[in-house]
């Protein structure tokens, strides 16, 4: 009966964890089956980065991706199918240590954006990746979470409407 059993045929998948470490910090971790230099390469070369940052199932389209990976260098990601309907994400790299550490700012949201630190720690041919997002204040992280919760709320409102049309009473 355990649904997990169906996954046994596929190779073991490493687990992604997300934890709110403090009022201002969010931490994402994941292990990758490859050396740090390769994982680092996939985070710093636009042609590789584009292949994984926007999974097809997200239904998003990455229109352009510029990355000047050096201290003080800028990056800019543009999503959307055309200029009238696009989202931009941009900022600056403030630390670049090849194969071990990347730190960048997220400036699209003004001063409330977090500083993102990604560390790559190699052990026995595998790499532990830790992505740490430090927000300027508790309020900024709460707001990001509330925004996300609101986006989810909208989705559930759509679901409620759908269920209503299907004739399901709200309990």
């Amino acid at each position, binding site marked *: 009966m355990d*649904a997990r059993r169906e996954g046994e045929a596929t190779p073991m998948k490493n687990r992604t964890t*997300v*934890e709110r470490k403090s009022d201002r910090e969010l931490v994402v971790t994941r292990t990758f089956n*490859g050396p740090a230099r*390769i994982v680092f390469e996939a985070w710093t070369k636009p042609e590789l980065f584009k292949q994984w940052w926007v999974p097809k199932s997200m239904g998003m389209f990455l229109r352009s991706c510029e990355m000047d990976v050096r201290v003080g260098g800028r990056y800019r990601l543009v*999503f959307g199918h055309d200029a009238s309907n696009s989202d931009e994400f941009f900022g600056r790299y403030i630390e670049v240590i090849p194969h071990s550490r990347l730190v960048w700012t997220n400036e699209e949201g003004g001063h409330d954006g977090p500083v993102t630190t990604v560390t790559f720690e190699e052990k026995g041919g595998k790499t532990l990746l830790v992505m740490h997002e430090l927000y300027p204040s508790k309020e900024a992280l709460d707001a990001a979470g509330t925004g996300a919760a609101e986006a989810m709320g909208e989705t559930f409102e759509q679901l409620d409407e759908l*269920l209503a049309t299907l004739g*399901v*009473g709200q309990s």
Partner: protein
Amino acid sequence: MVQYLRTHLDASFAALSDATRRGVLEQLGRADASITELAEKFHMTLTGMKKHVGVLEQAGLVTTEKVGRVRTCKLGPRRLEEEAAWIESYRQLWDLRFDELDKVIEELKRKEKVDGRKKRG
């Protein structure tokens, strides 16, 4: 992050494009049910129903809980705390990305091996 999640959830909402899955939600809106009960109700195999429930679960529309030998399904995760819910969505987003990153890494490892052989040869 908000924009990413919104789009991710839109994609998740596509889970509802299937008539059986809508039926399952309708059913769970009335009462919680086990996978076996749902399979019987919709005249499907257990494996087929598990897949549908899996899609709904991934989209956050259904949660399941195993008690003893029975896996019970219920509508979710509106019952989760708001923060737990958005953190779980954020986790799913990164999980999707990292699955793709796994593929990129495998490809780079494969290329490195081939190049290494070329150099030695």
